């Protein structure tokens, strides 16, 4: 009988020892930071490219989702990303200016003058070359969009913030934890990170696709034609005018390449387009790509930008030195300023120096046909706090 009692007692003790340690409701300490009670039901975002543009290459570690894009759009317009909460990404990337700001160089918080012109974000997702480390910014400093979007937040002349501080703001925000959970399925507040914020921003930026211009309509919709001036301009732009003595080759398409399946009007490379006279690579005031890769012969080289919406993105060049397209064209038609690494396409061609005022006007008329204003009313690209009744939903 004693043995039986001992066994029963041992069984009871064992049962108590082996029980689930969570008995009853969790304490506040144990619930703090948990997000897993919020549903995570990711929905893939189906991006249908317009005619003239292909399916965008998307990095495998950051697929587009509906909630990821929503979060990214809020972050893009939220001034929480700046030190003094006065500026957001949208301060220098305004939708009505093809996501530029209309200034020669951007102005950061407290009126701090930057050193570079704000680049357009239209179609930015198409400029990722998978095998290349120099893809984004005028100087190719960043390989991916995800890497690029982190930089302006902490740049002393831009948003001048601290990501650690911002992430803490996210964690204590009444809404962002829920949005990060819905976008990325994180289970705890401490998983909110700048990397996830960058992914969300990148997802939103990849939705900024535009190919609804007059030029596009002329390519894809029957009975839509360019004006005579713009057509002449286009023929000179793409060059090799079939030996016609009536049309000159303006040599534009060497660097602003286009083709029927990917009409981006950008070779997406780096070159010196003759902005400054230098005798030696060390004389450039802005080293551009060379300042990033430390290769002297790349000094003074900058990204060849897409010409889509170019009529909306004045002023032009990495330092915004040209106010008008006419000034840009004059730079090219004078052959540019001499430098050891001046693009051969400019130095070798005698033809571009002979363009008449009418021919230059025709080319500019063509460039204007690359303007797509249809997205001006796209609410899904606009500031959610300005267009939505419940922006935090």
């Amino acid at each position, binding site marked *: 009988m004693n043995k039986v009692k001992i066994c029963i007692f041992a069984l009871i003790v064992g049962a108590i020892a082996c029980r689930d340690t969570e008995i009853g409701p969790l304490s506040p300490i144990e619930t703090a930071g948990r997000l897993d009670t919020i549903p995570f039901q990711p929905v893939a975002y189906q991006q249908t490219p317009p005619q003239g543009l*292909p399916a965008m*290459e998307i990095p495998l570690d950051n697929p587009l989702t509906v909630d990821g894009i929503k979060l990214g759009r809020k972050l893009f317009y939220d001034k929480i990303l700046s030190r003094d909460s006065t500026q957001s990404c949208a301060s220098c990337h305004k939708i009505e200016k093809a996501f530029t700001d209309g200034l020669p160089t951007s102005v950061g918080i407290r009126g701090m003058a930057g050193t570079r012109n704000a680049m357009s974000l239209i179609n930015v997702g198409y400029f990722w070359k*998978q095998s290349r480390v120099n893809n984004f910014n005028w100087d190719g400093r960043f390989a991916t969009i995800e890497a690029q979007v982190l930089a302006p937040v902490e740049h002393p002349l831009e948003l001048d913030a601290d990501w650690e501080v911002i992430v803490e703001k996210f964690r204590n925000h009444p809404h962002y934890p829920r949005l990060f959970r819905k976008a990325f399925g994180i289970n705890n507040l401490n998983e909110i990170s700048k990397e996830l914020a960058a992914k969300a921003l990148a997802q939103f930026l990849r939705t900024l696709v535009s190919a609804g211009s007059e030029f596009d309509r002329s390519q894809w919709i029957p009975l839509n034609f360019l004006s005579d001036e713009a057509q002449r301009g286009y023929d000179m732009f793409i060059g*090799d005018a079939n*030996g016609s003595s009536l049309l000159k080759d303006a040599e534009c398409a060497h660097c602003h*390449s286009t*083709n*029927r*399946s990917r009409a981006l009007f950008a070779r997406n490379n780096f070159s010196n387009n003759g902005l400054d006279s230098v005798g030696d690579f060390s004389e450039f005031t802005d080293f551009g790509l060379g300042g990033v890769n430390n290769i002297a012969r790349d000094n003074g080289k900058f990204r060849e930008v897409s010409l889509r919406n170019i009529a909306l993105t004045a002023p032009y060049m990495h330092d915004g030195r040209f106010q008008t397209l006419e000034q840009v064209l004059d730079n090219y038609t004078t052959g540019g300023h001499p430098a050891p690494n001046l693009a051969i396409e400019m130095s*070798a061609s005698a033809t571009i120096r002979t363009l008449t005022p009418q021919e230059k006007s025709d080319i500019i008329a063509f460039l204007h046909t690359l303007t797509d204003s249809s997205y001006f009313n796209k609410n899904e690209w606009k500031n959610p706090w300005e267009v939505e009744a419940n922006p935090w939903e």
Partner: protein
Amino acid sequence: MKKLLFLAFCSLFLFAQCNRSKGDAILKLTFKPTFNGSPLLMSQNYPCPDGDTMSIETFNFFVSGIELTRENGKKVKLMEDDALYIDFSNVFTSAEAQTGKSFTILEILDDGFSEIKFSVGVVSSLNSKQPADFPSSNALGDDGNYWTAWDSYIFSRVEGNLDTGRNTSSTLPFLYHAGVPDMLQTRTFSKTFATIDNQTTELVFEVDAATMFYKSDNLLDIRTLNVSHTAAPTSPGYPFALKSIQNLAAGISIQ
């Protein structure tokens, strides 16, 4: 009956072996840039036969339609859906020039071969495609390698500066881009070599840039026309673009 089945099986096996086109050998093709026998470095001045000096800033071309001839005479096509892009534009040291640009082709038949043939340019089955048909990591997916006015890839590019030191010292930049199917150049190289499963066989080619301009029976005179990227046969620039790729192909030799 069993013997018949066994014989049939052996026959089928032998037939399959004779007609297989893939194996586990590896073929490495290496292209080395030269100028009159010396390693070619970009942006360096080289003496020309006529007293001028020349520097080259850009030098690249596609190779496609690669085909090997087996010792039994049968042909084996390689990389039918892709092309090699030989880009010497970032060759700035002797070491880089002597290393050259190498490309590894897998699944090569374990066999003996007597010939390799390829085209300088993009064969029509690929040239009918567009950059968006290829990933951005592929040279065929690079918009800058496609010329929309031709509906064609740019088969070859050579750009640089000629220092016309014969008369007065003045620099004449030059640019020749060749494309369109009519400009495709095919070369066949007789070479006995063997490939072995799980081993790499290397074939080395020298690409002499000087030949592009100074080939004795096909001179490309930069002074006459220093820029051509036309595909119009009636254009004055057409012969120059054509010569540039004809001579480029002629300047390739196998070691």
